[in-house]
């Protein structure tokens, strides 16, 4: 009757497998200088937009960049993944590529899941349409947003750009911002073309409560406020989803 035991696959010794696991963690630390922390399941996906929003041209390495080719499928995955119920977008950006920034802003605004944006530090230039793209937007009391016209820089990379073209690009940003926030077109243009405020440029820097006063951002708040709002919106959405039977 011994043959039956021989046929059975060898059971791994639990102590042995635990030791192997430990060894692999040690190896990872030795080789990579880091180890992945145990992933805790969260129903919120946090997306950070930092530094320059990088577009079609890879920026030189002194720039800290947010790569839109990674962010866009990430938003698709977040929308599609049933475990994710809400998206928090944290911004601390100095601006970047117009096309990439507007693409991210359009993606955020067309998500069906609740989205809350939070501006920490700065949400400048192309960061402005991204900051207003969510269902609700927050700005930290000390955070700033710079609103200024698009400057001519096409010559640097040899692309001829006309004033009219830049005006059209500006119009796209203006339209998006006024559609997704409470700021009026007149007010936004006034902020954009104000002189005497910025040293190197025309435009305005709005700080925390000023952004709310102008209707650009919905409320002044921090991480706690943003997460509370997102969780409320997730909770509100659940009964509606249960009625229609559509969870996504």
């Amino acid at each position, binding site marked *: 009757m011994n043959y039956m035991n021989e046929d059975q696959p060898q059971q791994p010794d639990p102590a042995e497998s635990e030791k192997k696991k430990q060894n692999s963690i040690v190896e990872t630390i030795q080789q990579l200088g880091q180890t992945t922390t145990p992933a805790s399941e969260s129903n919120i996906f946090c997306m950070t937009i930092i530094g320059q929003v990088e577009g079609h041209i890879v*920026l030189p390495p002194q720039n800290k960049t947010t790569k839109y080719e990674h962010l866009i499928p990430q938003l698709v995955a977040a929308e599609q993944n049933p475990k994710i119920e809400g998206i928090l977008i944290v911004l601390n950006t100095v601006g*970047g590529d117009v096309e990439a920034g507007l693409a991210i802003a359009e993606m955020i605004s067309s998500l069906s899941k609740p989205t809350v944006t939070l501006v920490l530090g700065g949400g400048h230039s192309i960061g402005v349409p991204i900051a207003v793209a969510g269902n609700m937007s927050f700005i930290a009391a000390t955070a700033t947003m710079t609103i200024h016209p698009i400057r001519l820089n096409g010559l640097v990379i040899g692309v001829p750009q006309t004033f009219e073209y830049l005006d059209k690009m500006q119009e796209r940003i203006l339209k998006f911002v006024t559609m997704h926030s409470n700021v009026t077109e007149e007010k936004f243009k006034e902020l954009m073309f104000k002189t005497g405020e910025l040293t190197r440029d025309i435009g305005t820097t709005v700080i925390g409560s000023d952004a709310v006063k102008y209707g650009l951002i919905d409320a002044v708040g921090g991480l706690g406020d943003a997460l509370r709002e997102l969780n409320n919106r997730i909770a509100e959405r659940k009964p509606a989803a249960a009625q229609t039977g559509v969870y996504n």
Partner: protein
Amino acid sequence: MTLYTIMPLENVLDGLNGEQEPSQEVWVNGVFMQVLPVAPGMGKIVRLIHCGLDDYLKPELAPGSFVMFGQPPVS
């Protein structure tokens, strides 16, 4: 490309025409990606080229993370 940023363009674009670091395209655990080699068998992720949708949500596959590629040494 039109940059709309508060950073002075000379700082942003400084070194744009300089030599780009040579990158390599590799398969790691079923994900095809572009990496910048930093040591033999080790690279920094530049971008994911071919992967599943949920792979984009993994923090270890975000651009800038380090990955090991190639065959592990036979002991």
